[in-house]
């Protein structure tokens, strides 16, 4: 699924992306972290220096480093130590994702719940990281970054066109339309295209842009071979577990994958000590430390039954 060719849709895409970058400039640190060459060890010192200059980010990073999230027994007391012990790519992905989470803060909009949006996104990031670690088709840290920002197009649409987006919400909640169809009916473009464009604008590497743009494939690949497969599969796995995005979780048929996920997805999740429950806990901890407040979370899921929808709604 490449970008839409239709002229009007492309204009819409461009105007949403322009307006978003105007409204939410990324912090210098996040921009720098994105553009830093992945394997250049010489960039490490730069990264530590740049990160240290941002006190807010440094304090988030250190809190996260010393929390159960990473489970290090040693006390990590500065950015240099975090870079050496957790790794440059890990620290970099924390800088990028927390920079983006910070930058996007949308007003409450109908049924859209920003906390649950990030809850879903970070869960996808962690599942993607686990799948990448298991299949070795991509760097786990890149998979995490791609997973966390895969749906960022939705936020851009809300920021740039709040009125249009509330129409989408109406169509989904009142008319019982599928989210994907409603989005297309109102905007003429999908959030994955907006997200892909945005990632391009931020100068993310090509594989990451692809993974965002292609995270809703027509058919889920039977094997995991690229970062795109990783993110698409992680997204479906989270939806299956009820860790779904902001408001479109209301329709359970939409989040049940139509075809079974590649077996390696569940192998990867089960390889994590504590499985999906642990990944969910980690997602919660990540948001707690990055947003510096306890995020609203999904209601206790009572199993795989339909009642979970009502439970989640009452919390949202």
């Amino acid at each position, binding site marked *: 699924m490449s970008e839409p060719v239709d002229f009007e849709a492309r204009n819409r895409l461009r105007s949403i992306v322009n307006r978003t970058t105007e409204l939410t400039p990324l912090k210098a640190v996040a921009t720098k972290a994105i553009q830093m060459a992945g394997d250049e060890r010489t960039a490490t010192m730069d990264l530590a220096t740049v990160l240290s200059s941002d006190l807010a980010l440094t304090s988030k990073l250190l809190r996260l480093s010393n929390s159960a999230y990473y489970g290090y027994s040693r006390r990590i007391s500065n950015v240099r130590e975090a870079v*050496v*012990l*957790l*790794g*440059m790519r890990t620290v970099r992905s924390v800088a990028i994702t927390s920079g983006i989470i910070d930058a996007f803060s949308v007003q409450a909009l109908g049924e859209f719940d920003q906390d649950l949006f990030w809850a879903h996104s970070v869960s996808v990031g962690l599942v993607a990281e686990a799948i990448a*670690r298991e*299949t070795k088709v991509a760097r786990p840290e890149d998979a995490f970054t791609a997973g966390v920002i895969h749906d960022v197009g939705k936020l851009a649409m809300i920021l740039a066109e709040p009125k249009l987006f509330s129409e989408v919400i109406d169509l989904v909640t009142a008319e019982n339309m599928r989210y994907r169809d409603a989005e297309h009916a109102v905007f003429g473009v999908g959030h994955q295209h907006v997200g892909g464009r945005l990632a391009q604008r931020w100068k993310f590497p090509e594989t990451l842009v692809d993974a965002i743009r292609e995270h809703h494939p027509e058919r889920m690949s039977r*094997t995991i*071979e690229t970062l795109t497969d990783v993110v698409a599969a992680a997204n479906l796995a989270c939806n299956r577990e009820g860790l779904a995005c902001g408001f479109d979780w209301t329709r359970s048929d939409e989040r049940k994958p139509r075809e079974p996920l590649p077996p390696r997805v569940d192998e990867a999740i089960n390889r994590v000590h504590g499985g999906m429950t642990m990944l969910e806990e980690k997602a919660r901890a990540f948001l707690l430390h990055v947003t510096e407040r306890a995020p609203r979370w999904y209601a206790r899921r009572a199993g795989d039954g339909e009642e979970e929808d009502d439970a989640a709604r009452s919390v949202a």
Partner: protein
Amino acid sequence: MPPPDFISLLSDAESLQLMLFACPDGVLATDRNERVVLYTGACETIFGFAPIEVMGQPASRLFASDDGYERFRERLEDDGSVSSMELPAERKDGPPFLAAISAALLRDRDGSAMGTVIYVRDHTDVRGIEDALRDNNRRLNDMVGRLNHAATHDQLTGMLYRGSAIETAEATMLASDLLASQFGVALFDLDHFKAVNDSYGHLVGDQVLASLAGTIRQVARQHDIVGRFGGEEFIAFLPGATLEAVRGFAERVRAAVAEHRVELGDGVGVSITISAGVAAIPVCADNLTDAIRVADDRLLAAKRAGRNRVTWQDTTGERNAA
């Protein structure tokens, strides 16, 4: 009775004398030629000499070594005063003892030297206690060191335990230069160790483990960190090593193990082989935990591929097709 007045007390010669002679430290004064002019009762108790034997004599005679006395004078001239300096001193009816002396130069209103006042304390007991303390402390340190070693090292192989090896590796990473922070990890596992135990017994099994540990240590460089990772698994951390370097290291260990029989005495020996998985930061993993995980996966792959080999790559295609 009027309250005691500080100034009047100081101007009363008799009060001053009383206070001077009541002082438990020996008070000794010399003129500007360093001859003794004042020698209190406490001095007599400490040195054992009667005042008549000392008065008018050079003060240096009271001290056992000219050298020590010279150093004392030098410090006094340099700083104007000396505080609690230890010097060997003479005792009339016994061997020299250790005195702690404090002193000050006395000057008149014009600033010209009048002499010296020296306060003397017998430090024999203090020194005894200090020596005993120091001795105890050293023994405690030894013991803590031995306990620490026992807590962090495997008794059989003398290698670091898993946790302490990882901690040491982390500390090395933190201490190293960031720009050069390449780090190699190698995991070794004895092939068919159970068979060795079953056919020769556990004592021979232990001997084999100790011999393998010795081989790894011999091949490792001085600053490499080696540890016993689990039953028959060993780990080596190679600071600064690339993937190629850590692979070469593991290959040398593997070859050395395969070439040499472990001698059990009486011409009996047992041949063993090992499998290894290696990884390196930053090419294979971002941090130590992930690097160990990758090395572990590769060790498993080496076992599956038939043992007695080193695996340094992932076989993604094959695993993905599963």
